[in-house]
């Protein structure tokens, strides 16, 4: 039957049997290859559209953060400016008493560094580990520029007795290597003893672990509170008719769109001792005029303000999941004899879990990194780890310490982000 002139037969043979050669395009190229080429071109086109933005974000965001993180384990403030002493430390193992050669190296480096006006950098670096030593370096620097005579040990001790301090020498040894894990140790409230072992710092200096714990604990608490407050609201919005729920939705979206500083200011105004809430409580007779509550500049202030600010981030994902839940499931459960509580617990609530997961992760991720609100309403007991990073950046200028703390915080956030991506998918992130 098959006729060479019958077009159907020809197609049938080429399409079904692989014997008759591959399908070809109109201009005679094999279809498989033409398809692969056009797909490759489409991929390249799609990628070219993304490329400008990707390059922009890499340059202005990823690279800066990477370089900032580099400071957490690399600080050549001492080693670059004190090369001879650093070399002496490298040649002599830990525990060696500094001999005259070491003192000579110190004197030579101090002189050179004072000439090059980098002595402040060196002093700042040692000051991280032994507070108060920056002035020792700068004042010695001024004097050594007039010239030092050997023996150098005696000459330097003549300028200041503190140079013999063993703690100073062990700090200089630690600083003599530019690559160091000491900032991470410090971020975990640990330090290196003279014999090189790792130990906990004195109890009154243990602040960072406590701050990390507080940050995580408060974020967890705030996540829990936003869940408790957000769940009924999301449920109400999802079950009301569209018109009414849209109207009420404005009450959720308005705070979402209002400036963070405005909302923080409002809470400062409301929670002050002479503020609206205390006035109302006094007026109601709940508290006496003298017993006004301290609700701000402490943890309470941080919790209240952050809960208010992050609540919409819980409500919106919960709402969008609850909208899709079919109400007939709950009705079916009720018709099968479940009480309303059982129907809620066994049928409705499990279906809201994706929204709950999305909202909780989002709120937690944002809470862990909060800076502005705790700084303004937190006082000293409501500060989070972000505030400590800012303090090291602007006040103590211990940038390596700031970077080490930032690295630990970033690791936690990226881990959560990864979990979020796995569970929710970042493509499903919605706004408003």
């Amino acid at each position, binding site marked *: 039957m098959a006729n060479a002139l019958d077009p159907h037969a020809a197609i049938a043979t080429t399409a079904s049997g692989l014997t008759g050669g591959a399908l070809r395009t109109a201009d005679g190229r094999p279809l498989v290859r033409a398809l692969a080429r056009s797909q490759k071109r489409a991929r390249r086109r799609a990628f070219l559209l*993304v490329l400008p933005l990707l390059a*922009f974000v890499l340059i202005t965001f990823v690279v800066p953060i990477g370089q900032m993180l580099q400071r957490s384990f690399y600080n050549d403030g001492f080693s670059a400016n004190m090369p001879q002493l650093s070399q002496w430390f490298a040649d002599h193992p830990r525990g060696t008493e500094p001999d005259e050669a070491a003192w000579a190296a110190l004197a030579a480096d101090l002189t050179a560094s004072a000439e090059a006006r980098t002595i402040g950098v060196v002093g700042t670096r040692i000051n991280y580990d032994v507070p108060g030593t920056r002035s020792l370096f700068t004042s010695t620097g001024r004097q050594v520029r007039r010239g030092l005579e050997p023996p150098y040990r005696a000459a330097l001790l003549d300028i200041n007795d503190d140079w013999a301090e063993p703690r100073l020498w062990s700090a200089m040894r630690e600083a003599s290597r530019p690559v160091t894990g000491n900032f991470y140790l410090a971020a975990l409230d640990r330090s290196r003893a003279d014999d090189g072992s790792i130990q906990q710092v004195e109890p009154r200096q243990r602040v960072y672990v406590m701050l990390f714990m507080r940050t995580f604990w408060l974020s967890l608490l705030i996540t829990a509170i936003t869940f408790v407050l957000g769940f009924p609201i999301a449920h109400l919005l999802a079950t009301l008719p569209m018109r009414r729920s849209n109207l009420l939705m404005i009450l959720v979206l308005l705070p979402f769109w*209002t400036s963070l*500083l405005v909302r923080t200011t409002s809470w400062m105004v409301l929670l002050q001792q002479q503020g609206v809430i205390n006035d109302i409580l006094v007026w109601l007779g709940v508290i006496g005029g003298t017993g006004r509550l301290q609700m701000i500049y402490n943890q309470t202030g941080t919790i209240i303000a952050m809960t208010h600010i992050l609540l919409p981030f819980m409500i919106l994902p919960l709402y969008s999941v609850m909208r899709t839940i079919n109400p007939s499931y709950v009705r079916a459960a*009720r018709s099968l004899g479940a009480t309303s509580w059982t129907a809620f617990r066994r049928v409705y609530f499990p279906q809201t879990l994706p929204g709950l997961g999305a909202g909780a992760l989002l709120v937690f991720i944002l809470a862990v990194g909060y*800076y502005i609100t705790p700084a303004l309403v937190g006082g000293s007991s409501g500060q989070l780890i972000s505030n400590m990073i800012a303090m090291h950046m602007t006040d103590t200028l211990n940038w390596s310490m700031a*970077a080490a703390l930032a690295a630990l915080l970033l690791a936690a956030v990226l881990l959560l982000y990864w979990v979020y991506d796995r569970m929710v998918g970042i493509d499903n992130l919605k706004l408003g």
Partner: protein
Amino acid sequence: MAVPTYASPLERIWHYAYLVICGLIFFFLIAPIVVIIPLSFNVEPYFTFTDRMLSFDPEGYSMRWYRSLLTFGMQNPNATGWAFWSDAWANANWIKAAKNSIIIGVFSTLLATVLGTLAALGLSRPEMPFRRLIMAILISPMIVPLIITATGMFFFYSNPCEMLGVVGLPTNCGRLAGTYLGVILAHATLGIPFVIITVTATLVGFDQSLNRAAASLGAGPRTTFFRVTMPLILPGVISGALFAFVTSFDEVVAVLFIAGPDQQTIPRQMWNGIREQISPAILAVATLLVIFSIALLTTVELLRRRSERIRGVTPR
């Protein structure tokens, strides 16, 4: 949301209790924002309602904090007429801050929107390689804590070229910290995730056969984009741009770290005002910002509805 007919009395009570609870939570959400509006008209420098305000005595209210906003930083606050307004325009700190906020906001929004929309178009194509990874990178400025971003930017913008030398780019340019360009670039980075998210969301429902139809009728890629794709995704692009603008308009941490005294923006001015000694003039600014956000919210909501209408997505 009515009580079903089969509900037990206990369930009825719970239902009304539930409505009351929701009412209280809505009150918690909205009251802090509303309460500062009347307080900003307080004639006294207090942060609470005075007796005169509560009895609606017009004497208890005044515009003095709004006036003090305007005159703060002016050279001659007692001038009248034209001289007053030109002095305010040139010297008043809050007006300068508003100008800076708008300049920085507009340019960073433009940058973020153009780059972001292009990228969202690429990302929504089915052929896009490494889609998930790239998306994760582009969204990360929203996820990484601002203090970390600002810290990284602080070093980078102080000496961008030396920093870029590490990755093999030319090393002859100046410092960007303390310049408008630096702040604009930083804010564009922070606004990008919002543009990506909103535009990708619009493109999810986008019917690719429209593009094919245009092509089959002889339109080139550019014509197709401007005549078919663009009008359809425009609402999403605009609301993404508004998000980016608000992000820039509200951003303070990066500004604190990389802006110089010339780039004082409204949030930074507020931050200073709150930290030093808080005066009710802050409440006047806050009130103006609340009105501004109501306007933005309305715009976004209208855009969302329009977008749903033209894409034929019926609201559930």
